[in-house]
C-alpha cells in the first residue's frame, strides 16, 4: 500500500524527522489560506501515487496566497501522470543548499533491508551512477546502529551539523521501515538547508501482507473496483486492456496463460489467479467479476491439483444458470476429478480442452473473429 506524500510526511514528523511546514488543501481557497498561514513563498504539490509530478505539471511554486490559489486551481482536478488530482499539499518553500537521496527498501537478493543513499539527490536513483551510491545492508537482529549511521554519513561526504543531523535521522528512518512494515521508505530529495536536513518528499510503501497489524496507518485504496472485489475473495486480480477474460489457478500459470494468449495474437483483459483449492462459491464469484468487464470471450485454464475440476465445472454451471453467460467460454480442464468435471461441462453445453495450447488458440480465434 503506497502512502500519499503528505501521509508519509506525517509519519516522518511523528518520528522526529524534519519536514517542511505545510498542510493539505482540497480547494484553491484552502490552498490560499494555508499559504497565508505559512507566509512567504510556498510549493503547491499534487497528491497522487506517482513520482515525476514535477515534469507532469503537478508541482507549482507560488510567491503569495493569491498565486497559491491560482496554482491549486490549475492542479486540482487535473490529470498528472494519468492520475486525477483531488488534493494538494501546500508547503513552505525551503532553502536548498544541497539535495541528497535516501531510501531503505527490501533487497530480495540479499534477503535483508538495504539502505541506499546518495549525495546526488533530487533525481531518479536509477539515473545516479553506481559509484555515487552508498549501499548498506542491515542485519534485522542488529538494526541500524549509530556506528553504521556515522559510516554512511561519512561515505556521503557530509560534515558539520548536517552530518550530526544525518546520524540522528538514519536510525529513525530505519525504525519507521521496521515498525511500519514498510517495503520502501524514500526521501528524495533530502534537503540540506543550512544546518538542517529536511525531507522535501516522502515515498512510503507498506507491505500489504502486514496491514493486519498496522492498524494506525491511514488506508489508501489503489485497486480498481474489480480488483477490490477479487481481493475481498482472497484472489489476485489485475485489470488489463484486452478483450479475453482469463481465470487460471496459480500466479505462474496465469501469467503463462496471458503470455500464451499474447503469443497467439490475443489481448488478455485481466490477470485472475483463482488460487489453489478455491471452492465452487468463490470460483463462481470470480467468474462474475470477469463477466462485469464485458469481455469477448472467457478463457478458463485449470490444472487441477488441490483445485478440483468438478468444483470449477459446477461454478461455471451455477453462474450460467443464475445470471447467464452472454459470451463464449473456452475451458481447459485437467487434473483432480477431471472426468467428473468434464462430464458436468458437457452436460451443460460447454466444451473442455485438455491442452492449454489449444484452449488459448481457440480463445484468441473467438476474440479476434469479429475484427
Amino acid at each position, binding site marked *: 500500500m503506497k502512502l500519499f506524500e503528505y501521509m508519509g510526511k506525517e509519519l516522518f514528523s511523528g518520528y522526529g524527522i524534519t519536514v517542511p511546514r505545510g498542510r493539505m488543501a482540497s480547494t484553491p481557497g484552502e490552498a490560499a489560506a494555508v499559504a497565508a498561514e505559512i507566509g512567504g513563498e510556498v510549493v503547491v504539490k499534487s497528491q497522487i501515487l506517482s513520482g515525476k509530478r514535477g515534469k507532469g505539471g503537478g508541482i507549482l511554486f507560488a510567491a503569495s496566497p493569491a498565486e497559491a490559489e491560482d496554482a491549486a486551481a490549475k492542479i486540482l482536478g487535473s490529470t498528472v501522470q494519468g492520475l486525477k488530482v483531488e488534493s494538494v499539499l501546500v508547503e513552505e518553500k525551503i532553502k536548498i543548499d544541497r539535495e541528497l537521496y535516501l531510501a531503505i527498501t527490501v533487497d530480495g537478493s540479499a534477503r535483508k533491508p538495504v539502505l541506499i543513499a546518495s549525495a546526488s539527490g533530487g533525481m531518479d536513483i536509477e539515473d545516479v551512477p553506481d559509484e555515487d551510491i552508498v549501499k548498506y545492508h542491515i*542485519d*534485522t537482529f542488529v538494526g541500524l546502529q549509530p556506528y553504521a549511521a556515522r559510516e554512511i554519513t561519512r561515505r556521503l561526504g557530509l560534515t558539520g551539523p548536517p552530518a550530526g543531523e544525518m546520524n540522528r535521522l538514519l536510525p529513525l528512518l530505519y525504525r519507521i521501515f521496521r515498525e511500519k512494515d514498510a517495503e520502501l521508505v524514500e526521501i528524495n530529495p533530502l534537503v540540506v538547508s543550512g544546518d538542517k536536513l529536511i525531507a522535501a518528499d516522502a515515498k512510503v510503501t507498506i507491505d500489504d501482507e502486514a496491514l493486519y497489524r498496522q492498524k494506525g496507518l491511514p488506508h489508501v485504496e489503489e485497486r480498481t473496483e474489480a480488483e477490490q472485489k477479487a481481493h475481498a475473495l482472497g484472489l489476485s486480480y*489485475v485489470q*488489463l486492456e484486452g478483450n479475453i477474460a482469463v481465470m487460471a489457478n496459480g*500466479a505462474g500459470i496465469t*501469467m503463462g496463460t496471458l503470455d*500464451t*494468449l499474447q503469443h497467439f495474437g490475443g489481448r488478455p483483459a485481466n*490477470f485472475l489467479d483463482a488460487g489453489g483449492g478455491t471452492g465452487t462459491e468463490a470460483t463462481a464469484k470470480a467468474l462474475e467479476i470477469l463477466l462485469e468487464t464485458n469481455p469477448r470471450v472467457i478463457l478458463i485454464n485449470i490444472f487441477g*491439483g488441490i483445485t478440483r475440476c468438478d468444483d470449477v465445472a459446477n461454478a461455471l454451471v451455477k453462474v450460467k444458470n443464475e445470471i447467464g453467460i452472454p459470451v463464449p467460454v473456452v475451458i481447459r480442464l485437467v487434473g483432480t476429478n477431471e472426468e467428473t468435471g468434464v462430464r458436468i461441462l458437457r452436460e451443460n453445453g460447454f466444451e473442455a480442452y485438455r491442452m492449454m495450447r489449444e484452449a488459448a488458440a481457440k480463445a484468441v480465434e473467438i476474440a479476434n473473429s469479429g475484427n
Partner: protein
Amino acid sequence: MAIIIDENTNVIVQGATGNQGRFHTRQMLAYGTRVVAGTSPGKGGQEVEGVRIYDTVAAAMEDHRVDASCIFIPAPYARDAAFEAIEAGIKVVVIITEHIPVHDEMDIINFARQKGATVIGPNTFGIVSSGKCKIGIPSNQFFVPGPVGVVARSGTLTYEIVANLTAGGIGQTTVVGLGGDRVVGLSFVDVLQRFEKDPETKAVVLVGEIGGNQEEEASLFIKKMSKPVVAYIAGKSAPPGKRMGHAGAIIERGKGTYEGKVRALKEAGASVAALPFEVPELIRELIG
C-alpha cells in the same frame, strides 16, 4: 540420489491439525514421505492420520529424529513457527504459508542463516524428490523418478510443466519450489549448484518469472554449469508496476523485465522456451 531431501528424510508437519495440515499429511504419507510427527499447541497427544501430534517441536524431537519440517501455520504466526523449527535444530524448513509479511521473512532467513538451516519458501508448493519424499502440497501423481531437476518460483505452472515431462516419459530427480515471495530462503543459484553436483540429474528446468533479479544471477552460474538448462520465464505480457499474483512478480523501475531475464539466460547458454508447454520438447532435444 536427489537434492536436499530423500527417502531417509524424517519430516514433521507444523500445524498438522488444521484442514490443510491434515489433508497434506495424508497426501505426503501416501506419497511415501516419512512423516514422523505433527505439532499443534495444546493438542499434544492427539493423532492425525496415524501421526502423533506434539505441543511443540522440541517435544516432537524428544521422541524422533527430525530432518525437515513442513509449515502450514497461518501467516501471522508463521514467523514464530519457523523460528521454533530452526532453533530446535531442524535443517530443512519448508514454509507453505502464503501472505507472510516480508519483514517476518527477512527475520526467518536471518535466523536460519545463523543456525545453518535451509529454508524453502515461504509461499512455495514445497519440494519433491521423485519417488522418495514429498514435502509440500503438489498432487502425488505428477512426480516420477527420472533425470531432470526442476526449480521454479511458481506452483501450478510447475505442475503443468512436470506433468508434461512425465507424460512425455521424462521423470524428475528433485522438483524445488523456491516460493513466490520477494524474500525466500533459496535462490535459483542455490538450487542449481546442488543439481550441478547431483550425479542423477542430467538436465535442469528453470521456471522463472518477472520481478527481482534471481534469473539474472542464475545466468551467471548457468554459464559455468556442465549440465544443460531449459528455462521458461512467465510474465512476458505483464504490465510494469503491477504485482502478478506473487509478491515477487512485479516489474519495478524498469527492473525485473521478461526481456532482461531471457537475454541473460540465452547469453548464459540456456534454452529458453517461449511458452510453457514447449519445455518438454526442448528437454528431449537436449537429453534425448
